[in-house]
């Protein structure tokens, strides 16, 4: 066992791994936004994309040794919270008027 551990150097996760993970999650969220029709699930996919960006921010903050990236994540969190509050308010008022609306029916938002 010790010879094996000597021969096989355990790789440590570098910021590149985290960036690739963020890219994959962003892609999944983007496909979800394009495919799903339920407005609530659309919002969840947008949250996925925001989280992917957060992963990338923290990874680059570590890589550049700069705390600004983590501050940016803080602001992304605040904006995500505000966006969810407004978006869910709009969805509530639409679905209350027309139950069962999908994203295809949201063209009724046009004045």
């Amino acid at each position, binding site marked *: 066992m010790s010879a094996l551990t000597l021969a096989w150097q*355990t790789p*440590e*996760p570098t*910021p*590149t791994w*985290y*960036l*690739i*993970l963020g*890219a*994959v*999650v962003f*892609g*999944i*969220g*983007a*496909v979800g936004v*394009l*495919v799903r029709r*339920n407005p*609530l*699930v659309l*919002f*969840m*996919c947008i*949250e*996925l994309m925001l*989280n992917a960006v*957060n*992963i990338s921010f*923290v*990874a680059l*903050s*570590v*890589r*550049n*040794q*700069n*705390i*600004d990236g*983590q*501050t940016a994540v*803080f*602001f992304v*969190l*605040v904006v995500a*919270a*505000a966006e*969810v*509050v*407004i978006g*869910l*308010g*709009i*969805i*509530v*008022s639409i*679905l*209350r008027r027309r139950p069962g609306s999908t994203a*295809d029916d949201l063209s009724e938002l046009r004045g």
Partner: protein
Amino acid sequence: MMELVVFVVASAMVVGGALGVVLRRHPVHAALSLVLTLFGVAVHFVAQEAHFLAAVQVIVYAGAIVVLFLFVIMLLGVDTADNLRIDPLRIQRPLAAIVGVAIVGLMITAIVSTRDTGPLAVGEGIDVEYANVAGAPEDADQAPVGEPDANIKQLSRNLFGDHVFAFEFTSVLLIVAVAGTVVLTRRERRKGEGST
């Protein structure tokens, strides 16, 4: 070894939850998959020594945002499963798959090709234990490693020093969002209807 195990397990949580959000038919199940993803992201933050962000991630996302989603799902009674077979535009799904693969491919290509470039704008160093990152500055180990709350101290100094105006504007943003939601969802009360 430990870091590798943590990375693999947390990445499995993140990617599995993300796939669950997109693929589960039931909105409640999608919301719970989102919780799984958010906890995985919090684990990644802890693994990168961003302790404050991990705590805020759990409190704000898993504690507030997903609960808000679940509230709305229950309130509206839209917790019926979607029929994923309906495809309004026949070409939409293949196009979406192509777009997704293209986005991920382009980003991974860019990431891998710029892997060996040095840091862009070197800050004053942050509280991380591994300074052997590719291109990390030589004096990266000058960062206050070891102090238990160094990350929070640095973050607060940065937030309330360099970014204090943006911080104040986020409070304005939150107030506007709350007021806007109250206006949006207020039901016009007809005359003669009792107060609820």
